[in-house]
Each structure stands twice: as structure tokens, then as C-alpha cells.
């Protein structure tokens, strides 16, 4: 198993948000996490990536059997966790090239590899730009500075392609994208998929799942995974909304 989340309970400022989340993700799989607003989808993504400020009260997160919980965020990234941000931040004056080169070389150092030289790095930038069809001439632009909403999301996918993580968690990567940008972003994600990695897509809408086809769809509600199904579950949600899930969960309680 690549990523395993076991009975994860967590909150912020004393407020419990995740109340026993269980997920098992294998290599080569695409998982979608859906659910109404405020049910902890983004919290889950943040906690996996190690964003400071959350209290983990119970459970564990394992990547290839190794617990991530004691690791600082950069170490989790170096181990192979990638988070596609819902709101990527701007870092003025820092070029994408120097940013990504620092990211790649620190990760390589962590893995006991030699740093990537300037030429090899430039080649990789070019290759990946072509691969994900992002013609934004990223290299000399500052990280997300002055990027449009769509460009920021495309830039997240470009970074995904550059960093080649084991698990890519995409937090509402579709929000704020028009249909053309959505297609490009989804196409990029699909090209990054291999037999060795896994993709977790967090979304409200099943529209994205037309392009990134999931093996599993999980519904997160009230801080727990209340239903898991295949691709058809997302279609059912599209048709019926979330109310029947809510009714079902409340009926059980």
C-alpha cells in the first residue's frame, strides 16, 4: 500500500474536524474525495502535507509503511507527498527556476542523490513544460507573482510534473478554471500518472472527474469517509446532490 490513513482524528483550535478518517491508496490508483463544503476535505490534505497549526489527536498517516506524522513538511515532500494548493501563494522576486531548483536539489540531497546541474535542470524544465502543455515561459517569472487564477493552477501542475512525487494531492485544482484551462490542467495530471504513483483529487464537482477518471470516489462528510464507490458514485452525487448522503448518515446515527 502506498498511502494509508488510519483512524485519523484531528482539529484546529480545539475544534475537531476529522473524526476517524480511513483511506487506503495503492500505486497506480486515482482517488477522488468529494463532499459538501466544510466537511474537512482541505483539512485532510493540509494534515497529510504537514501544514502547521493542526492537532492530531488519534490515528496515523503512513507512506510506504512509514509514519509521516513526526516529519516536518519539507521532509514529507521529500518522501514524495505533493500538495496542489487551492490558493497558491506569490513569492515576489523568486524565479520559478531558482525555486524549483532548490526544491529538486534539496529533495535529491535527502535521497542521497547528487544535485541536478544547470543544463540538466533547464532540459527538465523544458520537457515538463511541453509535457503538461504549459506555455507560460515560467522560467524567469517569479513564483505565482502576477499570475492569473488559471495560470496559478497550471503552475501547480507544472510543479507536480517537475517534482514527480509518489502521491499527488490536488486540493480543488478545478476551482476557478474555465473549461479550456480545466482540460489542460486535467491533461497535465493524467500525463503525470504512472504505475508507481497515485493521485488524490479533492473536488466539489464531478466535472473534473470526466477528465481525471478515478478508480475510487470517497465521500467525506462530518469528518469521516461515509461512502466509497467507483466512478458512478460521483455521477450519482451530480444527479442527487449531497442531501441523500446527509440523510443517510443522520439516519444511521
Amino acid at each position, binding site marked *: 500500500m502506498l498511502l494509508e490513513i488510519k483512524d485519523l482524528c484531528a482539529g484546529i483550535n480545539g475544534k475537531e474536524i476529522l473524526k476517524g478518517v480511513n483511506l487506503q491508496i495503492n500505486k497506480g490508483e486515482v482517488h477522488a474525495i468529494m463532499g459538501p463544503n466544510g466537511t474537512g476535505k482541505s483539512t485532510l490534505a493540509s494534515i497529510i*502535507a*504537514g*501544514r*502547521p*497549526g493542526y492537532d492530531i489527536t488519534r490515528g496515523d498517516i503512513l507512506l510506504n509503511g512509514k509514519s509521516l506524522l513526526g516529519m*516536518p*513538511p*519539507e521532509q514529507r*515532500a*521529500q518522501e514524495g507527498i*505533493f*500538495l496542489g*494548493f487551492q490558493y*497558491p*501563494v506569490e*513569492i*515576489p*522576486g*523568486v524565479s520559478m527556476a*531558482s*525555486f*524549483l531548483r*532548490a*526544491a*529538486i536539489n*534539496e*529533495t535529491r540531497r*535527502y535521497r542521497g542523490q547528487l544535485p541536478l546541474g544547470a543544463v540538466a535542470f533547464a532540459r527538465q524544465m523544458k520537457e515538463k513544460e511541453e509535457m503538461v502543455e504549459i506555455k507560460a515561459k515560467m522560467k524567469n517569472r*517569479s513564483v505565482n507573482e502576477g499570475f492569473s487564477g488559471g495560470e496559478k493552477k497550471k503552475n501547480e501542475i507544472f*510543479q507536480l510534473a517537475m*517534482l514527480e512525487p509518489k502521491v499527488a494531492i490536488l486540493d480543488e485544482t478545478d476551482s476557478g478554471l474555465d473549461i479550456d484551462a480545466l482540460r489542460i490542467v486535467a491533461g497535465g495530471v493524467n500525463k503525470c500518472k504512472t504505475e508507481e504513483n497515485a493521485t488524490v483529487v479533492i473536488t466539489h464537482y464531478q466535472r473534473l472527474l470526466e477528465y481525471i477518471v478515478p478508480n475510487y470516489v470517497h465521500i467525506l462528510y462530518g469528518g469521516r469517509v461515509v461512502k466509497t464507490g467507483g466512478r458512478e458514485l460521483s455521477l450519482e452525487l451530480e444527479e442527487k446532490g449531497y442531501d441523500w448522503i446527509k440523510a443517510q448518515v443522520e439516519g444511521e446515527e
Partner: protein
Amino acid sequence: MTQKKNEVFNEVTSGDYKYGFVTDIETEFSPKGISEEVVRYISAKKEEPEWLLEFRLKALAKWQTMTMPNWAHLDIPPIDFNDLYYYAAPKKKKLASMDEVDPELIDTFNRLGISLNEQKKLSGVAVDAVIDSVSVKTTFSDSLAELGIVFMSFSEAVKKHPELVRRFVGQAVPSGDNFFSTLNDAVFSDGSFCYIPKGVRCPMDLSTYFRINAEGSGQFERTLIVADEGSYVSYLEGCTAPQRDENQLHAAVVEIILMKDAEVKYSTVQNWYPGNKEGRGGIFNFVTKRGLCRGDHSKLSWTQVETGSAITWKYPGCVLGGDNSVGEFYSVAVTNNYQQADTGSKMIHLGKNTKSTIISKGISAGKSQNSYRGLVRIAPRATGSRNFSQCDSLLLSDTCGAHTFPYIDTANSSSVVEHEATTSKISEEQLFYCQQRGISSETAVGLIVNGYAGAVLKKLPLEFAAEAQKLLNVSLEGSVG
């Protein structure tokens, strides 16, 4: 969360000073303190002409009537001006030839990364190396002389080109200008002199490297650069000092005179010993730097990266006398621990259609205080003039301070003055974003700070920019690359 972040910053802002060593060399001192006797001693040591001794004595008399300025946002402990040596020179050993430099001094400069060996010319930079009160060696003097360029120590210039020195000294910084420059007028020791003749573009960067070594001494160097009509020169200045518990005084004067169509770029990387983490020791840096754009269409750029000194008091300025002359000031000032900096620029517009730009980036960490102070004055006859000032402050701790004191004084209605200021912190979001990509918090702070200062660093000559970038990282974080 905030506490966690402060820990990160504390960790990354605790880099050590790498140039704190002392060269064990026999030093010759003037009598302690300041008096007519000491001024005469210095002048005699340098075998100066009578007019220069007069210049010094006049300044001394004036200085004795002056009081230390207290308007800066600095907490300066009392300085006993009679408790230091105004002249300290490495004793000359008996060497085979006159031109030979004591190997110990060569070694000192090698350790600082400055090669005094012309064969090892790295990037085509000519160096005047000054230790304490004397210049030990000026490289490439001879090859530059073929182009008519005079590049030598100030003392040597007084002997070889007295007419040039006499004509220009005190033009940009008049005798008695301010407390510290007047002190310098009286006791200045060595520094560099440079004259670029008409129409000559200096083929290499010229530089002065200042090193304080002797204990209990101050450094009072004086640099004078004259760029004649249509000439160009890029000038670099670097400085370091040993790590000591006492405070040492550095009061320099730099004057630049530009004739018609001349252009001068003056870049400084100031890395005097900043004191330890508890604020003990460090250099008191009180510097007067001013350029006089005398000729029409002349252009002067000051670029400074200030990371050292316990106290910095420094306002490189441009007096834009010639019509259409241009003044620029680009600054990155970093303060950490208990450092204090009050620095900025003065742009005095006298000529018509004169233009000035001020870009100041302050970075404060630890318990430091960092102030920008700038004056933009547009005289009545300086019609059609423009100034743009941008002063940004970046705070890396919640115990430091950043302050901005802009003074604007416009005396005509056809000129435009713009001032922008921002204050920001490195956000937790930025830090987390970098970390999520596998970048350690230490490297992340380095990247963000260098990005923030990028607009200024870009103005530095290439090899100097790399140096400055490294220095920024060292001052703020020890190992960030």
C-alpha cells in the same frame, strides 16, 4: 504557530561572522586620542604638503566646536573620542624590494578572498587594499595609467598628483559638512584616489577593500573619485573587521565628482563586524558619501548592501547640479540581533530636468532596529525634475523594528516627486508553500529574502552580486544557499 515560526527564524538568523580573525602583525600607532599633535603626527607620517595639514587643522578646530548629531533613530552609547588611536599602520618589515608586500598581509587579504597578485586576476577587478590606516597595495595601477587613469592610494595621490587632489577634495563633502565628516577631514588616513580622464571608459572595475585589524583603533579613510567629461567607471567597495568585544569607530568620507556626460557606479558591500548575538562589540559605522553631478547629463548610481556594523549611519547622496543629471540609490540594509541602522539617501536637485530614483529594501531580524531616512529636495530652478522613491521593509521577527523617515522638499511646481512604502513579513503561507515543495525553512527564508532584495542585487556588478547574495544568506541564516 507564531512561536514555531519564530523558532524557525531564530534558527535561520543565527549565522556566524566569517571574517572575525585577527592578523598578528606589529602595528605602529599614533598617540592615543585626538589633538593638534595627533593631526600633525598623521600628516607628518604621510609626508603631506603644508596645504593639507592646514586643511586638517582647520577641520580639527571646527570639529572641536561641534556636537554629535542625535537626530537619527539610533541608540548610540557615549563614544570617548580620546580613547582610541586615530592612526594604526602595520610596521614595515625589511623586504627585498620597495614594492613587495608583507606576506602576512597578502595572506590576510587572501583569507578575505582578495587577491593582491595581478597574475591571479580573477574577474578583471583592480584592488586598492587598505588595512587600518594605510594602503598596502594597489593592483593594476600601471596598466591603468597607460589609459591616463589614476588609481592609487590617497596618500600616494597627494604626492604624485597634488594638483588633482587639491582641486577636488572637499568639493562634494565640504570641509566641516557634518560632525563625522569633519572628524574625518582632520584625521583621515588612507583610502583610494581615482581619476578617469576625458572620454575614457575604465576597462575594469576598480575597488577598494577596507580592513580594520588593530585593536583600539578607528578607521578614517577617504576616497575621492573624479570622472572627467564623458568618462565611465564602476567602483566597488568591501569591508570587514575582526570580531572583538569593543566597539570600533569607522568614519569614512567618499566624494565623487562627475563632469559633463560622466557616469559612475559605486557599489558597496558593507560587512563590518556586527557585534555578537547579545549586542556586544561591532563597528560603529558613520559614513558620509556624496557625489556631485557637476556636469550636464552626468549620472551617479549608489548601490549598497549593508549587512554589518553594530550601528550604521549613512546617507549616500547625489547633488544633481548639472542639467539633466541623474542620481540613483539602491540599497539593501539587513539588521539582525542588536544591530541598528539609520540609512537612506539624499537627492538634491539643483539642475533642470534632473532625475533621481531611490529603492530601499530594509530587512530586520532579531531585536534590531532598521530605519530608512531620505531627503529629496528640489530647488526652485530645478524645473521639470523627477524623483521616485520606494522604501520597503521586511520584518523577520516580532521583536525588531522598521521605520521610514522620508523628507520631501519641493520648491517648484513643474517637478514630480513620488514616494511609495510597504512593510511586510514573510507569511506562514509562503514558508509552508516552499516547504511543501521540499525546501527547508532555512533555504526558504533565504530564497524569499533574496527575492525581496532582487531589484537591488540586480544593480550590482555580476561577481559582486553573487558575493552579496551569499552575504545576505550568511547574515540572516548561516547556511542558506
